[in-house]
């Protein structure tokens, strides 16, 4: 029950605070438009009625939490999951390219890290380029990737996934370089006394030592992958996906839709990070990790 007191209570308190601030801001931000409406309709509502109206606009500047919650609930649970209004359907579209991009990115990151750790030339030449790659604004690169790939006939999932790859390989590469270099000197000396070959040292020492680093960096990478997938949907006129929902909501001023798509995206991100965390803990346990 300690976890209840230590984690749930503080987190819930913050959440409550956020909701309160959100409601206050919703009233404040929606009030001018509501006053305008009321004046034109020659209405003079009481304060309570006025506040109620600011929280029930169809296209509010800032939707109230309950409006987002209702919209999210309807579009998640009450729609057929094949409908393109279903958040589950849209989340799945984004998720599939996220996962593909994440898999590519993790593999690429590991390959780059192995190269950097084992080839001195790569160590000197690659790292600056890898860091430089992440300073380029992805929002600018994404449309070009989509356009160029479309020109060579690659459309659909792959281009979006590649944008996820672009964002997710970086944390994995950096984390794995650190992980593969993490063995202590005595652990390496030990291998030397056994006259172990470089590949034996790699598989029996460097790889197992890097596993905790891999999972830590994969948590960052999977969240970055989701961002990549959503960004990839924005410039492509994608018809489905969280990014497409955000864009459509912005076109038609469906602010409640935007916010509930945002919530859907956050839920997916939280689930992904949690899953990677759980996988990491299971692997750690299987490798004899001390229970925390």
């Amino acid at each position: 029950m300690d976890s209840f007191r230590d984690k749930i209570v503080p987190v819930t308190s913050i959440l409550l605070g956020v909701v309160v601030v959100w409601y206050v801001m919703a009233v404040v931000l929606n009030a001018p438009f509501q006053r305008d409406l009321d004046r034109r309709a020659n209405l003079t509502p009481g304060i309570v009625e006025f506040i109620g109206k600011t929280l029930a606009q169809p296209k509010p500047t800032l939707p109230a939490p309950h409006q987002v919650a209702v919209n999210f609930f309807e579009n998640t649970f009450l729609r057929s999951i094949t409908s393109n209004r279903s958040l589950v359907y849209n989340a799945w579209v984004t998720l599939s390219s996220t996962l593909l991009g994440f898999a590519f990115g993790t593999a690429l990151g590991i390959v780059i890290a192995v190269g950097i750790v084992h080839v001195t030339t790569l160590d000197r030449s690659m790292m600056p380029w890898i860091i430089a790659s992440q300073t380029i604004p992805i929002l600018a690169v994404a449309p070009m990737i989509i356009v160029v790939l479309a020109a060579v006939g690659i459309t659909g999932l792959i281009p979006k996934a590649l944008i996820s790859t672009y964002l997710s390989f970086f944390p994995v590469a950096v984390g794995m370089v650190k992980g593969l270099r993490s063995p202590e000197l005595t652990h390496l000396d030990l291998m030397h006394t056994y006259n172990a070959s470089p590949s034996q040292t790699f598989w029996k020492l460097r790889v197992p030592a890097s596993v905790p680093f891999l999972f830590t960096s994969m948590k960052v990478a999977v969240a970055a992958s989701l961002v990549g997938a959503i960004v990839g949907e924005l410039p492509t006129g994608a018809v489905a996906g969280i990014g497409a929902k955000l864009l459509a909501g912005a076109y038609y001023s469906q602010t409640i839709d935007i916010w509930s798509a945002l919530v859907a995206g956050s839920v997916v991100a939280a689930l992904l990070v949690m899953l990677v965390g759980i996988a990491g803990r299971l692997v750690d346990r299987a490798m004899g990790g001390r229970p925390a």
Partner: protein
Amino acid sequence: MTGASPAVVSASKLGLTFQTNDGPVQALSNVDLTIGKGEFVSFIGPSGCGKTTLLRVIADLEKPTSGAISVNGMTPEQARQRRAYGYVFQAAALYPWRTIERNVALPLEIMGLSRAEQAARIKRTLDLVNLSGFEKKYPWQLSGGMQQRASIARALAFDADLLLMDEPFGALDEIVRDHLNEQLLELWERTNKTICFVTHSIPEAVYLSTRIIVMSPRPGRVSDVIESTLPKKRPLDIRETPEFLAIAARVRDGLRAGHSYDD
């Protein structure tokens, strides 16, 4: 080789100078040394006297910069490639993701032994260090003394005739240390290995060794060599006998002569 005890380690005019940012540091200078088969040789001296460096040179973990050294009649590198020695570090250096038996199996896997042969050797060496029953435990589940015993088992597993031990009990408390000293002597007697043992404890050196090499710092060199007159069978309370105390006094004199007690 001829003679009763062919040299396992033989060094002459051995020197090693490290290049550091503060200029060259002479870690070893003019070390002459012969260690015969079956000997238990301790290297004792204050920190910086080069005792660990000397052990690392024997193990081919450091290269000497002058003089000559041979291990089993070969260069240290050749000896290492033939897995001539087991090395025990000051820290147990067990791989935390491997169980005790998999840690002991590590050198055997690297040498490409069959599964059955591995299992037999793991059983035998864990028996030897009294760790039977802990095969499936992970290192963190064992006490410091047990971890160090596991690392000794790992060094014994591939049956090298030479055991190099670098302050293996330095991090343990005195009670555990006494116990492990006793066990190590027993193990040495049973296996007839040659042991090179680095320590900074005078009682430990005297209790264990057939020969004590006293070293002194700046530059690291051998300042005295003391043959032990103690019998091979040594109960723990031999440490209160006048003979033991006399040897200990000689070691202390050797250290003093090498200015090891100077500031």
